């Protein structure tokens, strides 16, 4: 099997007495969608934050593309090719949807210390950005300021921004949240394609999506991975059913 793109070993983070992640290890391999599920407050977002660099881990290692990225800040990790979406959308509110995506395109192209060329006439920015909006179905809303988008539309924009970074791995924190039934369906097939572009660590509570997409599922409870395996293994695991799934599935 190929080398893992992302490799986490024994990651820990405490808030006071609370162990939000308590010795988490996992791997993400090329072409893979690795779903991370678990009850609310289990530490899934905390884990994403630590991988993306918006929270500093107390201990443990994070290797990305064979390199230890534990000492890098969030921006540096993003430049290496880690794209993340936020559980609660986080956008440049005054910028239009298009400018939001252009920002990502600009970041991917390299230095932002360019003071002269005007971004709006720069086709190397606008065209790829527009293409991304088209892919997520937001093209008609391209010129609407992010603040005026509906909740679901903002979620779609988050995805478009992550796409525009052409990352080497995606970290998605509940991308389905806020999508209507139709949106969820579309996004599910969209993510399915996306795995060929880059592997993905997917945090999601929408079990239909998880079971449809995941190659591997890890279950996080109270900061620890209590089970990890294929969809079928996880579905039938009694502990997981008790702690998380309930009587569905």
């Amino acid at each position, binding site marked *: 099997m190929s080398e893992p793109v992302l490799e986490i070993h024994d990651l820990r983070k405490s808030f006071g007495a609370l162990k939000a992640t308590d010795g988490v290890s996992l791997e993400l391999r090329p072409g893979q969608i690795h779903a991370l599920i678990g009850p609310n407050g289990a530490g899934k977002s905390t884990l994403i934050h630590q991988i993306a660099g918006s929270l500093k881990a107390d201990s443990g290692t994070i290797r990305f593309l064979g390199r230890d990225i534990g000492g890098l800040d969030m921006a540096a990790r993003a430049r290496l090719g880690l794209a993340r979406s936020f559980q609660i959308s986080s956008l440049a509110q005054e910028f239009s949807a298009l400018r939001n995506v252009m920002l990502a395109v600009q970041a991917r192209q390299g230095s932002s210390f360019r003071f002269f060329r005007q971004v709006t006439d720069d086709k190397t920015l606008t065209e790829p950005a527009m293409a991304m909006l088209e892919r997520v179905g937001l093209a008609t809303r391209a010129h609407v300021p992010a603040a*005026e988008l*509906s909740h679901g539309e903002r979620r779609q924009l988050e995805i478009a921004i992550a796409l525009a970074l052409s990352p080497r791995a995606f970290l998605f924190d509940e991308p389905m949240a*806020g999508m209507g039934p139709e949106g969820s*369906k579309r996004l599910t097939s969209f993510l399915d394609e996306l795995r060929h572009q880059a592997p993905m660590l997917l945090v999601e*509570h929408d079990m239909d999506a998880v079971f449809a997409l995941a190659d591997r599922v890890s279950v996080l409870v109270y900061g620890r991975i209590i089970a990890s395996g294929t969809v079928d293994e996880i579905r039938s695991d009694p502990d997981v059913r008790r702690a998380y*799934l309930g009587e569905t599935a």
Partner: protein
Amino acid sequence: MSLLALKGLETFYGASQALFGVDLDVREGEVVALMGRNGMGKTTTINSILGLVRPRSGAITFAGKSIFGLRSHRIARLGLGLVPEGRRCFPNLTVMENLVATARGTEWTLEKVVALFPRLGERRDQYANTLSGGEQQMLAIGRALMTNPRLLILDEATEGLAPVIRQDIWSAIRTLKAAGQSILVVDKTLSELLPVADRCFVLEKGVTVFTGSPATLTPALQDRYLGI
């Protein structure tokens, strides 16, 4: 008689119109589902009811009284409890403070809410901005319950909740319904929503395009209005 009734509601954001004539009503003791694709105006409708955005024309009555144009605290005090989209917990208040700051009435107490969501009890002195997404969602629901509303309005209240908790919430909704609580719900999971709803309203581009019982919302209609 309807507890809440909307007639021909139109709402604008600045110059752009979001609602073009929404009709909706909720009867006493009923669970009503408000549905529609993303961006069709569900949240705008709810915000218009509560006076969070100012509707421009139409009529809104609650318990026989017109609440159109009233300030939102007056509307809320008449007995509307909101679980808003995106949770909107008060980040600089602790869990406990979020719950008690706006509490009114006696039916739902802190103990009952904690019994419904034990997680909130465990986190009672933590600031809301450090809660996990799902914990914030529970908090928002608990907070609305503690205002003991006559009509509870849930805007995507199960978003981001783990399946077990979601089941708890739906069963709580069923319990509430059984106790005679009126509820207006927006939710994307039809499989869970339709069984509890008494009636459905579907919005498309800011207009009510369908009204009827869940049974009459056929798969064909679902496909047409909701894209399923």
